[in-house]
């Protein structure tokens, strides 16, 4: 007997029309111009398959947060259906703004060289007005600061030689933010890994993961960069190194979006792209690695789960590590989108919606009176710092700050 199996792409025929996805869409709740995940996703897909004319440019309002997919009881890849439709059918072409916002590598390389000038001018009212008026970048949005020295430059000058002495090695995909804007995060990872006996290597070639390119209609360029990254990660794997990451969005993009949206074959290296907190947690649980923390580190910390972390399902690793720090009074925030979604919230037309989406989160943060908010995504960090009074750190930085390096080395017999 022949069994006919459902082979519809992204499981779209499994949609029962139950509408549960629409309940959890952060955009739909604030912007009625967005058709919502059900209409934009599986419902619209049936029409688009018949005639691409049914494509609705309002799909651009999708944040790609994937909260619809989390909510779906039938495993429909609603977010993927929407993003693939944008790639396949949208007639909009990226303008100067989309190119500037999305090419974080090029912008970062230029900006780090002129960091003091760039950082100052991005704060100037006339510059903001021009960006707002000419480019359509919201004058309310605060740009992240650029560092004077890239992580890669620092690493080659100060760390590369020393890393070779460790018996065990990992590679590190730092991403744009930890390279151009906040090298401290990368340095913090090196600090932790060294303390538990791992040397940290840069990848052969690292390009921006391309998440902003996908969101800004430049998926062909994203694919080019993705192929470079996967080749580098593959080479690291062949040489026996797992590739660690400190950004959930880069991680999610390289593990899932490369395959689902860009058609990059990454199945052989998917498991060697690991969020650093997950990797460290597993070392502790499986290999008896131990961390020693300073007794004078005392902080009340609230954790915000980035949407892509929620989709990866890995928040438990970051939160479990932070809970290991004796001086941390830990609070879990309700899981809700902060509204920024990478470059989305920087766009003038999205800015008010972006703020409205995050409103509940901002209120909860302010009400909890915490010293720090922890989150594994740099763009969530910008949004929360821009919209609340709380400073925000990556869990890796929190662990590094609380870590007693010498005691940790001693516990793990590292010289």
């Amino acid at each position, binding site marked *: 007997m022949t069994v006919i199996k459902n082979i519809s792409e992204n499981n779209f025929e499994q949609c029962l029309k*139950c509408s549960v996805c629409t309940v959890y869409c952060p955009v739909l709740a604030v912007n*009625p111009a967005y058709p919502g995940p059900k209409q934009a996703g599986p419902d619209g897909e049936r029409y688009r398959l018949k005639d691409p004319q049914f494509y609705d440019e309002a799909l651009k309002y999708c944040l790609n947060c994937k909260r619809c997919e989390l909510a779906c009881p039938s495993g429909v890849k609603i977010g993927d259906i929407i993003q693939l439709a944008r790639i396949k059918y949208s007639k909009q072409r990226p303008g100067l703004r989309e190119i500037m916002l999305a090419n974080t590598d090029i912008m970062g390389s230029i900006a780090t060289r002129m960091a003091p000038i760039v950082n100052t001018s991005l704060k100037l009212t006339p510059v903001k007005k021009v960006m707002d008026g000419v480019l359509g970048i919201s004058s309310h949005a605060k740009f992240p600061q650029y560092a004077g020295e890239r992580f890669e430059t620092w690493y080659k000058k100060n760390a590369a030689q020393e890393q070779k002495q460790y018996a065990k090695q990992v590679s590190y995909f730092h991403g744009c933010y930890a390279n151009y804007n906040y090298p401290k995060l990368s340095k913090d990872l090196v600090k932790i890994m060294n303390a538990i006996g791992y040397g940290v290597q840069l990848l052969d070639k690292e390009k921006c993961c391309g998440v902003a390119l996908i969101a800004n209609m430049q998926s062909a360029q994203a694919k080019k960069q993705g192929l470079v990254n996967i080749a580098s990660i593959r080479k690291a794997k062949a040489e026996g190194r797992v590739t660690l990451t400190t950004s959930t969005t880069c991680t999610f993009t390289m593990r899932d979006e490369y395959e689902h949206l860009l058609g990059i074959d990454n199945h052989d290296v998917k498991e060697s792209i690991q969020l650093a907190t997950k990797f460290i947690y597993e070392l502790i649980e499986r290999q008896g690695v131990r961390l020693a923390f300073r007794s004078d580190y005392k902080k009340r910390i609230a954790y915000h789960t980035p949407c892509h972390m929620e989709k990866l399902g890995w928040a438990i690793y970051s939160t479990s590590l932070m809970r290991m720090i004796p001086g941390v009074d830990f609070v*879990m925030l309700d899981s809700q989108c902060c509204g920024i979604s990478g470059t989305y919230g920087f766009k003038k037309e999205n800015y008010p919606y972006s703020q409205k989406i995050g409103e509940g989160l901002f209120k909860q943060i302010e009400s909890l009176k915490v010293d720090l908010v922890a989150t594994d995504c740099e763009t969530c960090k910008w949004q929360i710092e821009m919209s609340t009074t709380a400073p925000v750190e990556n869990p890796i930085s929190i662990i590094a700050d609380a870590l007693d390096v010498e005691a940790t080395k001693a516990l793990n017999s590292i010289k």
Partner: protein
Amino acid sequence: MKFDTIIIGGGLSGMAAGISLAKKGQKCLMVSAGQSALHFFSGSIDAYGCEGSAVGSVSSLPSCHPYSKMGKDTLIELTPVAKSLLADLGLDFVNNDPINHYRMTPVGLMKPTWLTMREYVRGSDVGQLERWGKVALVGIKGYLDFNTSFISQNLDRQGINAVEVEVTTPELQKLRTNPSEMRSTNIAKTLVGDALKAFAAEVKAACPEDVDVYLLPAVFGIEDDGPVKALQAEFDKPVHLIATMPPSVPGIRMQTLMRRKFQALGGTFMLGDAVVSGKFEGGRLVSVRTQNHGDMDFEADNFVLATGNFMTHGLTSDRNGVYEAALGVDVDYLADRKEWTKSNIFDDQPFMSFGVATDDNLHAKKDGMVIENLYATGSVLSGFNGIKEGSSTGVSLMSGLYVANQITKTIGR
């Protein structure tokens, strides 16, 4: 990663078990593949859809029924536990114990039930509504999941003559920009604060002045019942709500409150992940693996399988058989596929009673062997047709509590 109890499924049953165990200080993990059937909640918990006493009917049920397995005395013992669990969540349910009362369906019919949220329309005996006097039945313009003419026809049959009115406000009109998204939950998110006051003013303006009672769709208060109370405070006459077509706003409220409670008690909740396999050893389940966590083994002393039936993919089927999706435990079903269904859709459909095979303590079985630390609860269980009987929420709630009790008894043993 090690837990005391791992609960597979995050609906009513899994939550009832999880909250009860977390309250006892257990370290719990809950894995939920998507949102639950509470999004289709009627506003009432049906114990058993009969006239008179639900618990009284237990002795007439077959021995394979989850209620028979739990036993009448245990169900009576668990009744106050169930009520206090709901009350602790801030959910205000009313009952007419030990006798069933009646709830109103979205088309205005009356069905027997056990517990109903206070704001809902209820009937006291044999399906008859209170004698209300002059009734206003209020619809919302463009909102298609609440059909006032069906309801008013059925009210008419019960001798109640309702005035149908339809209202809107500028805020609601904005929502209608997207006609397909004019849904209960979006309306609930809109109708808060000043927008709710403006809406109440429109309702008053649209209704005759001498109205004695207002009937409205249950589209208020997605996070808590604050907006329901705020709405009622705007009127000097009673305001009752009627269930709408899904998604159910009060159901989502209940789901959210339960999830928050579980997390506040220290429970770990993983949404959008699914258990894909389990490691069984010597009549015990040792650990499970999930979609998102690769080779990470989630270990626990006890496990609760609360994944629901076909609708939520706790059960799957193909032409050859019926399967339990997460762990591949034994399923009770009819071998002859022709007997799975009956041609009249309104008949008691046999496939609705298919489900996980358990012993009398709701331990699941694998390859015919009882798994002593794996319990099944709620709609994934075999031996009952929750829809036909009007018992699915009751079985879910009671079996969740029952299993939590069983597990608590094993602690320290």
